[in-house]
């Protein structure tokens, strides 16, 4: 079987382009702390709905809290480093601490139907757009 590389990477290029265009985008505009806030979030559109993907390596599921209210999503928790006593450190790059980040979405969502999945250090939040917010085709009488 010949593996085609182009398809999966298209997503990546779209992501790169979006990163470059971020400064010009008004998505989430003033509704979140400046970039640099932990954890970093990417938001994707999937048909009518949205998916937020958050990188949280080394954070265990039990240390993670997600709350949703109206248009607001809050992700908070803590990351701990598990060193053994009397360990001598050769290289220390990972950071520990707590985080609390709130984002306000520029769309009406259905908070009761938000689903969260946490796997391999990645949190995926499936955010359905509110029914009332979806565009409707209008029949001409």
């Amino acid at each position, binding site marked *: 079987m010949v593996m085609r590389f182009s398809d999966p990477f298209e997503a990546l290029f779209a992501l790169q382009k979006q990163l470059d265009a*971020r400064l010009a985008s008004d998505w989430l505009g003033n509704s979140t702390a400046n970039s640099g806030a*932990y954890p970093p979030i990417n938001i994707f559109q999937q048909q009518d709905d949205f998916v937020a993907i958050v990188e949280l390596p*080394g954070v265990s599921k039990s240390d993670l809290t997600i709350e949703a209210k109206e248009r607001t999503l809050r992700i908070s928790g803590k990351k701990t480093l598990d060193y053994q006593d009397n360990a001598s450190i050769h290289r220390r790059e990972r950071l520990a601490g707590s985080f609390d980040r709130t984002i306000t979405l520029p769309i009406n969502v259905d908070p009761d139907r938000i689903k969260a999945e946490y796997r391999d250090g990645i949190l995926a939040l499936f955010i359905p757009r509110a029914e009332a917010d979806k565009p409707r085709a209008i029949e001409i009488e």
Partner: protein
Amino acid sequence: MAAAKDLEVQKKRAVQSPEESTVPANMFVPITDIFETNDSLRVLVEMPGVDKQNVDISVKDRILTIEGRIDFQKYARMTPVYTEYNIGNYHRRFSLSNKVDSSKIKAEMRDGLLTLTIPKSEEAKAQRVEIS
């Protein structure tokens, strides 16, 4: 431990290598902690989004190579609308001293964190000398 401090985002560092990869993908240097206990060397590597089946760990000529591949297919049919970080595979190499036994590496992957336990060789273990 000190009072919980607020976490900061650590910007991903791209792999600097003289060769280019054949596919135009990003390659990042995973954030790593290394520490030593009485009987082993522990290497903790953060590779979010990497399933344990997509991790390759090898030791050749005392060079430990860690590679993690993410599943780009998960991003198919999704259009980014707001982004703060990029995604890509992970690659990092470390040279090991002869004081560890690289044939007995144990690896564990959990929540995007790879933990390698490399036992020290017998002669490298601290010997406690009793005064008679």
